[in-house]
Every structure is written in structure tokens, then in C-alpha cells.
């Protein structure tokens, strides 16, 4: 091992300190807003803690309760996975489809772009309430129209089999964000590549498959990853939809149990909230939060590793 002259060592230390100094705003942010909460979540998951009295060590009790005995955890996990698979894939397909259509339109593209983007700007609570009203089985205009044309309409948010599809429709209605991203990427595809493909006799599907898709694959990946993470944190819409559809919207001290109807709109973040802030069980809430964190990490890691499959060679 070579000895480093003291002057050089001091210089290195100064340089390291300077680097740390410049990094410190981000480092402090990382520690305060990510590392400390993460470490304390792990710590509290082994504690009995109601938020008022000092925490006490209970070992794996909270973990056992969540995985074996909590009546909400598994239904919520199933619902969240359903939403991740169905809602995310449909949102990507729908966003890409609308983007393709609008880029193909010669006249009035601006109007359609605005029309499709506007719903995205609606506050989620207001949008959800409006949807519950529109899809109300008895008084909503949707079912009135469906009955008039002789169909037997579903109960939408009031039926366990239809509540998640109803939420998916709501999510597709607010597709504006993805549509704009896809449109930008579609307009970025070099025109000469299309022309070359056409000269080689490629049809519309082949042009899409061999020219468009490879060019926009990073954007598709981005949409899928951010979609998966957002859906894992899906909270506001199902909670509002369940509350409004069930009719229990406060008043006489009736407690509302999330997930109406029959736990079908229960998502993992709602379980975290229910345990931590309604049942005063911070320990079990931390367990569920950690499971959610781990799942999000696994999903993202899987998608990023599969990246090579999505990306074209030069990406």
C-alpha cells in the first residue's frame, strides 16, 4: 500500500467535503424524506404503536396479523393487481390509439386534442363523483339510455363485478396525459423511415410494427412503469366512488368501511390508511406499506430488466 503524503490527504479530504457540501441539499432531502421514513417504517412494523403512546416491541406479530388475519389485506392486494394489469394495459393501449388517431387527422386535430386532454384536468374527486352520478343504476343517464335501447344495464359502482371496470372507464376518460406524451413521441418518428418502408411495400400494420413501435418503445416503457407505480398508489378514486355509491357520506356518525361493494374497490393504500389512521394500528399499517413498496420495486425492476426487449438497438 503506498503512503499518501499528508498534504495530499488534506487536499482529498477538502475536496470530499466540498463535494459533500454541494451534494448536501439533495442528501438532506434524501435522508429526511426517504431514508428516515423508510427506516422508521421498518422499525414501526415490529412495534405496537397507536400514534399516542410510546411504541412497544411485538416482533413479527404485525406481520402475522396482516398476512393471516387482516380481512382487508388480500382482497386489496388482489384488486390492486387487477388494476395494475387491466387498467395500466388498457390505458397504454387507449392512450396510444387516441394519439395515433389524432396524429393521422388532417383537419381539426387541435380540437380533438383539446377534447381528449380536458378531462385529465378535472380534479379526481369531482370527476369520480360525476362518474358515479352518470353511472347510477337508478337515476343515472347511462342506464336510462341503455334501458331505452333494450339492454339490461349493469349496476356499475354498486356491483362487485362491475366496480373495477367502472373505475377503469373513469381512468380511460382521463387519458389526456398519456395521449399527449404518445403524440409527441409519434410526431418524432422520422418521416423518411415511413417512406422507405412504404417503398419496400410495407402495409399499415407493418409500418406500425416495424417503424413506429421501435421508435416509441422507450415512451411505452415509461408509460407502463409510471402507470404501474401510480396504480399501486391508487387511492382517491376508489375511495370516493365507494363512499358516494354506498350512500354513506357522513352524517350521523355511521362509520364507513372502505371497499364498497363487498371489498371490490379496496386498494392497498386504503388498507394502509384504514389501519394507520382509523384503527390506530401504525404497526400493521407499516407492514402493508412495506409490502406495497416491495411490490413496486419488484415490478419496476422487472420492467427495467425487460427493457432490452422493449428498446431498439440504438436506445
Amino acid at each position, binding site marked *: 500500500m503506498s503512503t499518501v503524503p499528508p498534504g495530499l490527504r488534506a487536499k482529498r479530504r477538502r475536496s470530499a*467535503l466540498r463535494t459533500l457540501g454541494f451534494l*448536501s441539499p439533495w442528501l*438532506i432531502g434524501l*435522508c*429526511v424524506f426517504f431514508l*428516515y421514513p423508510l427506516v*422508521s417504517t421498518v422499525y414501526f412494523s415490529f412495534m405496537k404503536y*397507536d*400514534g*399516542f*403512546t*410510546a*411504541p412497544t416491541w411485538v416482533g413479527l*406479530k*404485525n406481520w402475522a*396479523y396482516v398476512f393471516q*388475519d*387482516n*380481512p382487508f389485506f388480500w382482497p386489496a392486494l388482489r384488486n390492486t393487481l387487477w388494476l395494475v394489469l387491466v387498467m395500466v394495459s388498457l390505458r397504454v393501449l387507449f392512450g396510444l390509439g387516441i394519439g395515433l388517431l389524432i396524429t393521422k387527422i388532417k383537419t381539426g386535430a387541435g380540437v380533438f386534442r383539446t377534447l381528449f386532454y380536458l378531462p385529465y384536468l378535472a380534479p379526481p374527486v369531482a370527476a369520480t363523483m360525476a362518474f358515479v352520478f352518470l353511472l*347510477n*343504476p*337508478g*337515476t343515472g343517464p347511462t342506464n336510462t339510455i341503455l334501458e331505452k335501447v333494450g339492454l339490461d344495464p349493469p*349496476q356499475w359502482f*354498486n356491483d362487485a363485478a362491475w366496480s373495477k371496470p367502472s373505475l377503469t372507464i373513469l381512468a380511460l376518460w382521463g387519458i389526456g396525459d398519456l395521449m399527449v406524451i404518445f403524440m409527441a413521441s409519434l410526431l418524432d418518428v422520422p418521416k423518411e423511415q415511413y417512406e422507405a418502408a412504404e417503398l419496400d411495400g410495407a402495409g399499415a400494420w407493418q409500418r406500425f410494427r416495424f417503424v413506429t413501435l421501435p421508435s416509441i418503445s422507450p415512451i411505452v416503457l415509461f408509460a407502463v412503469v409510471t402507470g404501474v407505480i401510480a396504480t399501486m398508489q391508487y387511492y382517491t378514486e376508489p375511495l370516493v366512488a365507494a363512499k358516494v*355509491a*354506498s*350512500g354513506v*357520506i*357522513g*352524517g*350521523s*356518525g*355511521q*362509520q364507513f*368501511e372502505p371497499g364498497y361493494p*363487498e371489498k371490490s374497490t379496496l386498494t392497498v393504500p386504503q388498507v394502509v390508511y384504514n389501519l394507520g*389512521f*382509523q*384503527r*390506530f*394500528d401504525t404497526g*400493521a399499517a407499516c407492514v402493508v406499506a412495506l409490502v406495497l413498496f416491495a411490490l413496486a420495486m419488484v415490478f419496476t425492476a422487472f420492467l427495467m430488466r425487460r427493457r432490452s426487449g422493449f428498446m431498439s438497438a440504438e436506445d
Partner: protein
Amino acid sequence: MPRSRRTSAVALAATASIALLTSACTGSADAGASDDPKAKTTLTFWHGWSAPSEVKAIEANIRTFENAHPNIKVKIVKGITDDKINQALRGGGSQGPDVVSSFTTDNVGRFCTSNALADLKPFLDKAKIDPATTFLPQMAKYTEHDGKRCTVPLLGDAYGLYYNKDAFKEAGITAPPKTLSEFSEVAKKLTKTKGDTIERLGFNPSYQAYETTVEHYGSQFGITYLDENGKSNTAKDPAVKAMFTWQKKLLDDLGGYAKINKFRTAVGDEWGPKHPFHTGQVAMQLDGEWRGKMATDAELGFEIGAAPFPVPDAQVADYGKGYLSGTILGIANNSDKKNAAWELVKYLSTDTDAVVSFANAIHNVPSTVAALKSPKLNNDPLYRTFVDIAQHPKSSHAPSSVNGGAFLLTLQDFGISYEQGKQKDLDALLKKNDAQVDKDNEQAG
């Protein structure tokens, strides 16, 4: 920057970060109150009322208190939900409440065991107030948990039966039913169908309809939810089975789950003018005393009556009882003005004039024995029905539990699956309910 100063700056920053990261605020057990109630101070009072008339009534009440206590100013925050209360009681801080009120009586157990709300016993003792004789006994009972009193009742709610007198006349029914078998017959008689749809429902027994929860039926059957050891008792208590069986039979007789659920989802909002009882879509409604005022304000085109909700045939001697709940009032344990806060709590919950005027203004049932006897109390016969229900010795509220009302919500969930016909074996279902409730309570305890 010279090196020594830079080093000390780094050290200071590091120390500050460590201090910041390792500090966690936790509540403490009640350490009594040391503030001077005569000192000039401002209290923050959170309440859940939001209707303009109710907000005005509570404000008027608070102004009277301020006039009597010139040193105390009260900052009122309206429309507060339980979730907000829970957060504030944990967080504290200068913007947090000193005095809170909540409509969720089921949460008393959680508030008391977690020390979120201060123990009121020392204050009551000092003021020589005996809760057992000052408040209505059942209300005194549901505002404490396991012998610990962390809340007092601030007005109460009594539940009974509202009925459409015109519909009764039309069907040839002369008096409100007293037993549940009579009630089921009347409900069937009042139901009108047109083809496959229900035009008018005599009564909607579904656990998912307005106010017809397991808990609200439970008082009529006299359910013992928890045994003396705090274990769930529903599989052993024949009253639970009787309630499930009666409700399911009535639901099936009136058209079955699918039909009634379709009807239920098509009616108006519970708190709006299009409530199905107001529109005549439902002829009988289990509800609290407020419904009478709401119905009167909505200027219905028909006459309404009120009576106690019927009881099982074997308990006809107890006819007149009902489910009770109400608003609870407590002092935040993290408040540093507990003595001043107690002055406000004492005034709101025990001053007869304050209780009566507030009860009259918002059409709730008074919670003190003196206020119930007051000649100033509203004389409206509809309202008086509920005052009588509140005073019935057998009227009750579900027991307090360490896990709040979770055990009731669990039973409600099982009730819904039973009414849907998804689970047919009632014994097995109630055993499952007991197992779940016990696991949840063990986790919370």
C-alpha cells in the same frame, strides 16, 4: 471559510440532522392540567356540524359561554370529520384543537385506550359532577370505556320508526306495529310492485340501506356482542341469529336481495330532499330524531308519524326501547389549556339552559337528566317520541371496544353476505365473525 469554522459548521449541521431524524413525537399518558382557567386564553373547538342552522346554533351557544367567561375566547372550526380529529390528536401543535366533538360514539374505546383524549375524571370530581346521575345512564355508559371516562355526551340521538300516515290509511293500518312479526306484515302490505320493479317499499330492511345497520337493529333484539371477557359472542347469542333470520326473511318476502338492491341504488341521497321516505318510495323508515325536522322542512305532501321501532315478539314488554348514540365531547390530551377547555366542556355538556337551547335548535335529544325534564324543551309530538325512547331503561348503544366500532363493521359485512344469500350457514358465519373480531381485537388490544 476557514477550516475550523467549516468543520464546526459541518458538525452543527450533522448534529441538527441527527436531532431532526431521531425526534419522534408520541403522546403521553395524562399528566393532569396545570393551566389557570382564569387566565386570558383562546381555545380551539372542533365540531362536526355543517348545516347552516346547526352551525349557527353551536356558535350562539359558544357566544353565551364567552360572555360568562370573559377571559376565554373560543375559535370554532366546523365540519370536522373523525379522520381529521384522529390526525390532530396525534399531531397537536398550536393549530390543533383543545376541545373536540365527534358523532362516532363507536370510537370512544379507541380514544380512551390510546390516551388521545384526556381522562375527565379529575375534572368531574373537582366540579362535583357525578356522570351517572347527571347524564342519561345509557349515554353515561357509552361515553366511557373500561371504567375510563375520556368523553361526555353532548346531546344524543335516539332511533325509532317513522311512518307515512297516508300510506297506512290507504292500506287500512290503524296503528304503528309493536312486534316485528306485525311489522313484517305491515311492510308487505305497504309494498307496491309494478311488473318487475318496486314502486313503493313498505320498509327497506337491507343492511346497506339508510340507517338499517346491524347495530341499529341490534338494540331491538338486545344483542350481547361481547362476553364478560371481551370475546365476541355472536355465535352463542340467540338474539343475533334471530335478528339475521328475521331480516333475511323480510328481505326475501319483499322481493329478494337483487330486486331490493336495485331499488336501493336508485333512490335519492340520505341527507338531501329526495330521501326515499320524503318521496314516498319507502313507507316506513328506521331513523334518528333529526328525520322528523328534515321531513317537516321538506314540506311533504303527506302526514308522517313516529313511534318506537318494533321489538321481537318475545320482548313485547320492552316495546318503547331503541338504539341510542349521540355526539361525544372530549379534551385533546396534547392540549396545554385543559382547565380552560374543561370549563367549555362542562358548560356545553351540563349547563341545562345550554343543553336545552342547543337540543331545541338542532332537534337532538338532550343528554342530561335535568334538560330532559326542562319545560323549555321542544313540545313537538314527533320529537317527543324520541325523547321518550331515549329515556326508556332498555334503550342501548353497542358496547365500547378497544378497536372502536370495528366489531360492528365486521358483523355488518357478514350480514351483507348473508342477506345476499352468498353464505347460507348462519352458525358457521357467526363463528367466522367471532374469530375475525377476536383476532382484530387482539391486534388492537
